[in-house]
């Protein structure tokens, strides 16, 4: 198919079909909600967030556009911690395999996709995001219909080294270029030559990304523009999270796991920011009205590590029933912190700091500092550290973190062993049993 034709199709979807679909969806929902009357507390939860609808719309559109993106616009597959701002002015459609894998986790298709990778020899001990993604590529199956093929793979190791091996396998499969941004792990303070290295890699990225997109490299003005948007988005996301410092918190930490999708996948776009503005306003409104995410908030917890995607609903219900809420999570917070260091006056120079000094790329002393600060700022009386079989970088050190948090903050802390994506590695009943025992210990 000619690229012009693809391009026209893509534009139609982007400008017409997507929004139109959403209109239909809206109308249907309005009818439904007329019948049901929304904004009533749902079980142990407060009334559902209005913004959820908008979130679904945004993400559905994102994946819908993706279906028509390859051949029409350059497509990049990008890790969650990658400086995507640089790609936006070049017209890239960015696909986030991690976000996609999370979606597969929620829909419980991970075992199926992972089996395909295990069949060709991938060990089941590997990160389930990677197994899910590679399985989805091999089988060409995805719950979102279709993922566009990449023209460029963009990997940043500021979250883990796993992405390096994973993207290396993707590069071998798709036979497309892979750009790597490798910010050295920060022990104490990053050394000047470490910062310089990241800066140099960003410069190289600009060249490669432009070449693959067959465009001239973006101008500084363009980069500044996107950077402003990204920073604003990050700030707004931070504001949404910060509303949970109120008592009761206007939403649950588990809501946060879902609402994080735009800041990860659409960072640096106007839609992303519009969305978070709406969400923030809704949360503020709820705070003013005294509406909580959990109907009766008795205890406030901190969550560390990725969510257990396939059990988020079950777990949040269990907690809400006991009057517990995860009022903050180190995972959702990471996206509010990283971008706050972006300075539109010096987009690339500040990106060095923004993308190097993120929670998973720093020593455990700083990790502890962040957790302790969050626990205090959000008045937590307990913490659950999810020891995630699939994510070693996030999980190493948690047993020590537990001791320290409990001792220094005098709060109750438990370590819950599970997996962020693969239900075969986690016995839900046992996990809920342990959580229940933990909650009982508060009374």
């Amino acid at each position, binding site marked *: 198919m000619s690229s012009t034709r693809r391009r026209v199709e893509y534009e139609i979807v982007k400008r017409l079909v997507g929004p139109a679909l959403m209109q239909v969806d809206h109308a249907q929902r309005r009818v439904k909600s007329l019948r049901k009357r929304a904004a009533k507390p749902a079980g142990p939860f407060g009334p559902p967030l209005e913004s959820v609808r908008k979130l679904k719309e945004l993400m559905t559109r994102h994946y819908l556009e993706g279906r028509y993106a390859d051949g029409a616009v350059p497509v990049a597959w990008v890790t969650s911690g990658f400086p995507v701002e640089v790609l936006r002015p070049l017209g890239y459609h960015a696909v986030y395999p991690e976000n996609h894998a999370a979606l597969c986790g929620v829909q419980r298709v991970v075992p199926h996709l992972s089996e395909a990778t295990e069949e060709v020899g991938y060990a089941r001990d590997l990160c389930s995001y990677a197994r899910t993604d590679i399985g989805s590529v091999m089988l060409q199956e995805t719950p979102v219909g279709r993922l566009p093929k990449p023209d460029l793979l963009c990997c940043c190791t500021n979250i883990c080294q796993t992405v390096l091996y994973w993207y290396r396998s993707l590069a071998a499969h798709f036979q497309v270029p892979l750009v790597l941004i490798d910010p050295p792990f920060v022990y104490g303070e990053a050394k000047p030559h470490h910062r310089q290295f990241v800066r140099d890699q960003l410069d190289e990225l600009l060249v490669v990304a432009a070449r693959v997109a067959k465009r001239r490299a973006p101008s500084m003005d363009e980069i500044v523009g996107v950077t402003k948007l990204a920073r604003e988005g990050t700030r707004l996301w931070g504001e949404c999270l910060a509303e949970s410092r109120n008592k009761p918190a206007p939403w649950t930490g588990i809501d946060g796991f879902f609402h994080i999708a735009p800041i990860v996948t659409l960072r640096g776009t106007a839609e992303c920011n519009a969305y978070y503005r709406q969400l923030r306003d809704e949360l503020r409104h709820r705070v003013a009205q005294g509406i909580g995410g959990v109907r009766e908030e008795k205890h406030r917890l901190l969550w560390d590590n990725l969510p257990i995607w396939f059990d988020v609903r079950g777990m949040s219900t269990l907690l809400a029933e006991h009057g517990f809420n995860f009022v903050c999570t180190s995972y959702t917070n990471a996206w509010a912190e990283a971008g706050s260091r972006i300075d539109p006056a010096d987009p690339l120079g500040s990106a060095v700091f923004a993308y190097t000094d993120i929670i998973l790329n720093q020593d455990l002393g700083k990790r502890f500092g962040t957790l302790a600060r969050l626990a205090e700022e959000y008045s937590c009386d307990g913490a659950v550290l999810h020891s995630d079989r699939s994510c070693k970088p996030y999980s190493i050190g948690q047993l020590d973190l537990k001791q320290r948090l409990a001792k220094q903050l005098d709060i109750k802390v438990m370590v819950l062993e599970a997996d962020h994506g693969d239900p*075969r590695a986690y016995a839900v009943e046992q996990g809920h049993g342990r959580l229940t025992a933990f909650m009982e210990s508060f009374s």
Partner: protein
Amino acid sequence: MTGAGAPVAIGVDVGSTTCKAVVVDRAGAILRHRVEPTHPRTEQQTTRILDELRLAVGCELPIGATGYGRKRVPGATKVLTEITCHARGAFSRVKRAVVLVDMGGQDTKIVRIGPGGDVADFAMNDKCAAGTGRFLEVILGRLQVPFDEVSAHVARARRSVPVSSTCTVFAESEVISLVAQGEELEGILRGLHESLAKRVAALAGVLPADARIVMSGGVALNAAMVDALGAALRREVSVLPDPQLVGALGAALSAS
């Protein structure tokens, strides 16, 4: 045991749960056999069994030993792994290229047997019991279902209740909670078989399109498992005659 010829060799397969021994004739027919639970004192046990068999046939014979206790069979003239012996044993029965799935107590092996009876490739589970007969045994024990009634139970299932954990410990607790939630036993058992079969299929990896599957080992006596395996591999699975004795048969043939 038809058309029995003169005995030519003895084969002993000392598995982790059962100890098997056969006497064969030149054509590979089994003249006599023994199956008993494996005794911790393997040497004593195999010496006794060998003495009995020698006495019964009335002569000295070469002895092939296999199984995890193969190095503790006094007087063995040929010592080979179960992989090689199962391949020989299976090939002597089917005389063509096949994929053999042997599911025993502690391990499961998949052996791709070439057209000449050679081992073309094999896979075997690691230390973990997931994917072996032991997995079923533990959970059936918990559910108090006797082994020989399993197939009948599974056949009665109206639907399959998925069991997602494949780790024996996790699966055990998952099954218990399914029972507590009032799921019917038959459905759970079917789900359990399907889960185990999937694990074995994963071990098998990508099989040639025209592969024919035959099964041996104690678990092959469980018809429900044979069906589940066929479904998971999307192929017909046939069970070898005397599935438990295939390894011992191969050992005997190798020694003769």
